[in-house]
């Protein structure tokens, strides 16, 4: 065969196979599109979320699916880039013809996707993207299960108000969308409490050395150090605080990295007594929380954390909505989602509107504390698993 003809045959075969895949299969499944960072720098969390989605899917389908029909998940990789995320969702909507969308890890990707979902009238349940704007645009097809970044510090605020009553504080935050919004809202909270803010400082994620800034913090001798950091930076911050012998009344992490097992592994003893705001840990008093944690551990032989729970809960919320939806058309599913009132491993889910936000799930946040290498829920009192240790023992007096 001449090379040109060989090429032609190959191309034809290829084109045919592409067409074949493009034709929707005549199955009775309900298609749910999931857009997650499966490659690129955020892939680690994309992976946990995908596993959790898969776990929820298997459970739901094992129980017979929804109204006798099975759910099918179609995962698409957004590689952490907004334009690629958009490609992925375009494909899910126009090629795979999904009836409902979920996923969305980074805020940048989620924001792009929400606009698209709204335009195409496909309901989109945001799993993780935490920028406040996501639910502030009045999009009728966009729902969010996790609280926005600005609400993470709520439990911390009540703890400060009732227990600590600090006079001075320092905020260090990573210069990301999440860090910026949540530190800003915490700054507002401090002002309301009448706490003097000595320093509010951003740093670029993955900085090697925090000592210069921590040295300055030390010289200010604040009562409270509040840090919004991801896990490895969090560990470095605590390690270097210990190295520099900085002794505020308490260290508080603003969620994100401070609750993960890797934080403890890397900070080692420096993790002890550190408080953190959190949305979820396996010890929170929600039915199914611990269950999910154990099942995940058993199935994937690795640890999970709140991102995974968000994903796991998301699919249950969608299944619940599908169960109640009149038909499986996107608009009916939207209506069903809007009237959601269910309980999940991530907490109770109900989409409400308040302030500028619409269709936002409202969840209480908690405070946890590392005590002898274990993460204990310490605040609010009614759900605490252990008493809090306060004030923090100075480094040199610890054994």
């Amino acid at each position, binding site marked *: 065969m001449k090379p040109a003809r060989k090429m032609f045959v190959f191309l034809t075969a290829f084109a045919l196979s592409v067409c074949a895949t493009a034709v929707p299969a005549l199955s009775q499944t309900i298609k749910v599109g999931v857009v997650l960072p499966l*490659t*690129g*720098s*955020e*892939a*680690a969390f994309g*992976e946990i979320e995908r596993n959790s989605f898969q776990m929820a899917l298997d459970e739901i389908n094992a129980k017979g699916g929804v109204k006798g029909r099975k759910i099918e998940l179609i995962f698409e990789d957004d590689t952490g880039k907004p334009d690629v995320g958009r490609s992925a969702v375009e494909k899910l909507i126009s090629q795979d013809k999904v009836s409902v969308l979920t996923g969305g890890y980074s805020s940048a990707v989620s924001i792009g996707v929400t606009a698209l979902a709204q335009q195409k009238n496909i309901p989109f349940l945001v799993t993780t993207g935490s920028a406040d704007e996501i639910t502030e645009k009045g999009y009728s097809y966009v729902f969010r299960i996790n609280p926005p970044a600005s609400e993470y510090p709520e439990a911390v605020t009540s703890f400060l108000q009732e227990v600590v009553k600090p006079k001075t504080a320092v905020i*260090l935050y990573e*210069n990301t969308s999440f860090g910026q919004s949540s530190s800003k809202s915490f700054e507002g909270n401090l002002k309301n409490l009448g706490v003097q803010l000595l320093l509010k*400082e*951003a*740093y*670029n994620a*993955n*900085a*090697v*050395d*925090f*000592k*210069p*800034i921590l*040295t*300055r913090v*030390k*010289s200010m001798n604040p009562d409270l150090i509040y840090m919004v950091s991801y*896990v*490895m930076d969090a*560990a*470095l911050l605590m*390690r*270097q605080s*210990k*190295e*520099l*012998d900085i002794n505020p009344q308490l260290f508080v992490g603003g969620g994100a990295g401070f609750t993960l097992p*890797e934080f403890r*592994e*890397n*900070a*080692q*003893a*420096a993790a002890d007594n550190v408080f953190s705001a959190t949305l979820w840990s396996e010890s929170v008093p929600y039915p199914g929380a611990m269950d999910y944690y154990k099942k995940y551990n058993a199935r994937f032989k690795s640890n999970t954390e709140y991102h995974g729970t968000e994903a796991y809960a998301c699919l249950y919320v969608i299944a619940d909505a599908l169960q109640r939806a009149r038909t499986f058309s996107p608009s009916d599913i939207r209506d069903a989602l809007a009237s959601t009132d269910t309980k999940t491993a991530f907490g109770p889910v109900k989409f409400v509107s308040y302030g500028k936000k619409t269709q936002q799930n409202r969840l209480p946040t908690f405070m946890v504390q590392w005590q002898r290498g274990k993460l204990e829920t310490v605040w609010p009192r009614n759900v605490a698993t252990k008493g809090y240790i306060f004030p923090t023992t100075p480094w040199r007096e610890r054994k």
Partner: protein
Amino acid sequence: MDVFWQTLVAGILKGGLYALIGIGMTLIMGVMGIINLAQGQLMMVSMYITYVLFSALRIDPYLSLAIAMPALFLLGVLIQKYFLNPLLKVDTILPHNQVLMTVGIGMVLTEVIRFIFKSDYRSVSTTYSNKTFFLGHISFSVALTVAFGIAVMFTLGMFLFLMKTDLGRSIRATAQDKEAATLMGVNTGRITVITFGLGSALAACAGTLLAPVFYIFPDIGGPFTSKAFVITILGGLGSTVGAIFGGLTLGIAESVGSTYLGMDYENIIGMIIFVGVLVFLPSGFKRLTKV
């Protein structure tokens, strides 16, 4: 005053590691006249080697220097031999084909590592990762201080090697005048290969020393590549002593900047110094220090 001294110490300790990365880059720049934009990625690979040795075989990072450095030397040799040297003969519109090739190599290294290890953060938590000692009120991280010591050792070693051995002299001679070096019986092709190997090995050394104090992920290479070329330019291209100056300067500038201006200014400061030196002191600090 403590704040200042602590800042300075942090800067110097960090600068030691930077110098190590810078020397590797500067050697390559001097001999080949190209900027190796995969320097940070080579360092990243060595961090993963250290990580694997530590987590699988419990080999102490300082011992794994003996494995990571030869391994990266070999990797560097292969890169130079099969990917960079062949480009010398090619005539292209842009004279930067070798530089662009290093970009491609950096990309592939990152992705291969990501393929194997995923994007997860890894760390090498040794018993000394968290240890500190105090001189007065100034704290010194044990691991960073040891790293600084080893960095100084390797820097000195490198310096002596370049000054006192025939191979070292041949490398310098090749950097200054390739043709004359050939006339003196230097196999300059082999020298470029060895130099790239050495440059990679030094990057490996920096990576391995950094592993216990920092953490590891596939994209860590990029930022260090840019630091490496800033250092190289600061030090005056191809000057070993200059690279040490450059490394310390960048380390101190970053520290002082992040203490007194703010941590998010850390990168900007490096870059502005870089452009400033590039424009106003085209031969870097070499001109100021005459070395």
